[in-house]
């Protein structure tokens, strides 16, 4: 554990430097922020026709989608594709030779990107929040620490969940597709397509106990002041429980999978 703590600064530094080396890719990623703004356009038309929907007026929709776009950048992960590629092509061999669980290389690699994106996005959202009256965060400044914790835990859950799924690559070549199907469900249940309040009660109840909401709707609703203390505690508890469950699945599948690893290529 002490060795791991000593290794982290160098790994984080390498993660950040690699992210900076891929500047063009970071800009392209930032452009994906435009996707929720298309959904925003659709909901604003609806709102103009029928008025506020489930407590969301025009300003509410603007705040939700702009915040969702920012939160998504911090919680989205590419780990399932990265792992899958490493296992299928034998690139994992190089990582396996080192006295370090490759998970930490994926974690610090992601953190490098997140730090760079944060450095670009956070000033931008701060300026937007001041300039756009529609963008409104009615929470006390201290609550931002809890929002940051929710974003961080949502990211960690996403990374561990993707890693656990990716371990199936030791047995199957279809992990990328499988994970895409899993996240096809997640698009709705995470609050990415629309705020969860707009869905029926049974759907919201299901979304509350599944892992998808942790990485999007939960931090967004928290930042928009839409959750009471109990709902916040429940959100963190669900995140923690899924993180532990996927963490255990990852450990188990990692140990079993290594026995199947074929280290292809020379």
């Amino acid at each position: 554990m002490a060795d791991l703590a000593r290794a982290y600064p160098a790994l984080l530094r390498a993660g950040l430097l690699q992210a900076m080396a891929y500047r063009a890719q970071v800009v392209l990623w930032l452009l994906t922020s435009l996707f929720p703004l298309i959904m925003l356009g659709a909901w604003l038309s609806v709102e103009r026709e029928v008025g506020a929907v489930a407590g969301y007026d025009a300003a509410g929709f603007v705040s939700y989608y702009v915040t969702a776009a920012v939160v998504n950048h911090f919680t989205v992960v590419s780990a399932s594709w990265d792992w899958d590629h490493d296992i299928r092509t034998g690139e994992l061999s190089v990582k396996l030779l080192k006295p370090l669980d490759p998970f930490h290389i994926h974690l610090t690699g992601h953190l490098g990107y997140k730090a760079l994106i944060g450095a670009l996005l956070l000033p931008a959202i701060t300026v937007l929040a001041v300039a756009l009256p529609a963008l409104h965060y009615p929470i006390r400044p201290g609550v931002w620490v809890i929002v940051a914790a929710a974003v961080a835990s949502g990211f960690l859950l996403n990374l561990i969940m993707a890693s656990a799924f990716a371990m199936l690559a030791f047995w199957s070549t279809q992990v990328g597709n499988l994970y895409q199907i899993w996240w096809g469900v997640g698009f709705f249940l995470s609050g990415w397509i629309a705020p969860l309040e707009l869905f029926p009660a049974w759907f919201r109840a299901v979304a509350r106990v599944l892992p998808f909401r942790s990485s999007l709707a939960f931090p967004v609703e928290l930042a928009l002041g839409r959750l009471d203390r109990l709902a916040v505690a429940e959100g963190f508890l669900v995140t923690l429980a899924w993180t532990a469950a996927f963490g255990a699945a990852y450990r188990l599948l990692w140990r079993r999978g290594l026995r199947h690893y074929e280290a292809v290529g020379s």
Partner: protein
Amino acid sequence: MAIEVDNLSKHFRVHHREASLRSSLRSLLRRRYETVRAVEGASFQVAQGEVVGFLGPNGAGKTTTLKCLAGLLHPTGGRVRVLGFTPHQRDREFLRSFTLIMGQRNQLLWDLPALETFQVNRAIYAIPQRAYRAALDEFVDLLDLAPLLTKPVRKLSLGERMRCELAASLLHQPRVLFLDEPTLGLDVTAQAAIRAFVQSYNRRSEATVLLTSHYMADVTALAQRVLVIDQGTLRYDGDLSELVERTAPYRLLRLTLERTVEPRVLAALGEVEPGGELSVTIRVPRADVTARASEALARLPVSDVAIEDPPVEDIIREVFAAGAAEADRHG
């Protein structure tokens, strides 16, 4: 013993499919598998500080054996110990004690200067700052790395990259080195530089080295002992010079003649290899080589004479050809 391999076997289950749409569709319903026996019953030991060459044609099982020794693969059968550890158990202490360098794999961070990979490895292997500095200074000197350290890895040539790869892999001063085709694709100068470095590392640190290479010069320069593996089975374990004597019971008598000589006169000395008229190579039984050379000097218009062992490449080819013929007989 640094390396102990006892009756090692590694089998792979491979999905078998014909190259047609029909068979692709059929394989969706019912998959056919076949078992590939990459290594079968290999046993050998390597002492600390020894340098051993691992020879064999493509697909013979060399790399699979190295991967079992490095803990990347779980053996199907048998027992493997490296420095007292069972490699696939991935004990942290074991992972700190060896390295595997694969000529076709790259551990360097692609878009960053090699120095960044060195720093990451220093942190991962918990190398004390002073030891890191000393090792790095030495490698920079021996491998001439100074001009390369600050260039992004993707801008380096293959030879430059391999020199950086060696340094990155040896910073933690491993006691066992597995080298899988470390000079593959390099030009002659770069190959020689890598060989000289491995040799000096072995001498200084008494590290055990097990290497595979397609270039016989790597093996002859570095290893006295060789393991010859073919179709997953170990065919020879011993001195390279003994292998040469055993497989090739002849030496090559090379004569440079001042004028052409009747073929039957040359044939009296031994088996004449096809070639030029003034530059002649004759296979002569080992025991008779001095007498035949004297005879040639006395009776023929010889301007120069040389006695050589046959190239190791030819010998290895003969070993494999004999192995294949034996397999055919039993198959």
